[in-house]
């Protein structure tokens, strides 16, 4: 997730990473990680504290004022079999949610022009 600030509203965090902040901590699928007190301020997560707690890398490009929060490291690429609520644009730019296909079997076919 790319951010221009180190404080990210919890809604944005959920939309961009799938991690939802709940009473018990940051949750995705069956997984919940309790958050330290310093990781939340006024409905926003503090990226450095959040990243450290979640074992996620946080890169900072000071020249461009950008933060990049990566996925959890130290395990495997997938930590839950629940498909994330991935939303990507169609060729004409409308948002399309993977969850719109619930009720059907889905083959996600990853390809590229290059």
């Amino acid at each position, binding site marked *: 997730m790319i951010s221009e600030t180190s404080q990210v509203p919890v809604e944005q965090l959920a939309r961009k990473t799938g991690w939802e902040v709940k009473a018990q901590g940051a949750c995705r699928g069956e997984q919940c990680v309790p958050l330290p007190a310093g990781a939340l301020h006024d409905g926003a997560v503090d990226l450095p504290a959040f990243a450290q707690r979640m074992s996620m890398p946080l890169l900072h490009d000071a020249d461009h004022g950008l933060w990049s929060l990566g996925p*959890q490291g130290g395990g495997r690429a997938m930590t839950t079999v629940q498909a994330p609520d991935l939303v990507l644009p169609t060729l004409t730019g409308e948002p399309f949610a993977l969850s719109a296909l619930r009720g059907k079997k889905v083959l996600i*076919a990853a390809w590229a022009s*290059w």
Partner: protein
Amino acid sequence: MDAGGAEAAAPFVPADVEFPVVVDGAHRLGELFGVANVPSGIWVDEQGVVVRPPETAYPARPAFAALDLDDAAVVASLPASAVDRLRTVQPFVQQMQIEPEAYVAALRDWVARGSDSPYALSAEEVLERSAPRPVEQAQAAAAYALGEHLHGLGERVASVRWFRESHRLQPDNWTYRRQAWSLVDPSQGPTQEYDGDWLSDVQRTGAADYYAPVDLDPRR
């Protein structure tokens, strides 16, 4: 998975396509599932549960792998500019482990039989078969995302720095490398910006190891 966006992808999508086609410029499929090469397939069931993690997913054998480039009629039918490239690339592509027939048969079995299909894996197997993600690879995903974002902003020099960092952190990720190379040179040849290029890296890796074989042994 294309930083070139809809503009790059659209020419490859038939007008009468019957399924949703979406653009993953930031390679979210890499971040979320561990996709590191294309084509890759992920199976998701009716409840939104992943039943096979990313694996090589050729729908058919690439047509150019079977072209007889010693046949004058075949060569005459191709654009002249493509023939030399095909002669160079074809032997490597022929060595790659691509088993579309078995993969498509397994996919059809799952479509017909659902969770009774032996190819629909248990949750434990799905997670176990998904790619390992050591700390460096998580960092590579964050670096790649910065590169892609900066590229989108027109900050080409800065994007190269982060793309290079993603390559350093995860040298065996083909999507990071091929994407970055192609933004400089569509044929992914040697460039000043990057240390690798497609042909040299395939030679170094060995064409037979370009794709991991798909494990279609029924587990139950």
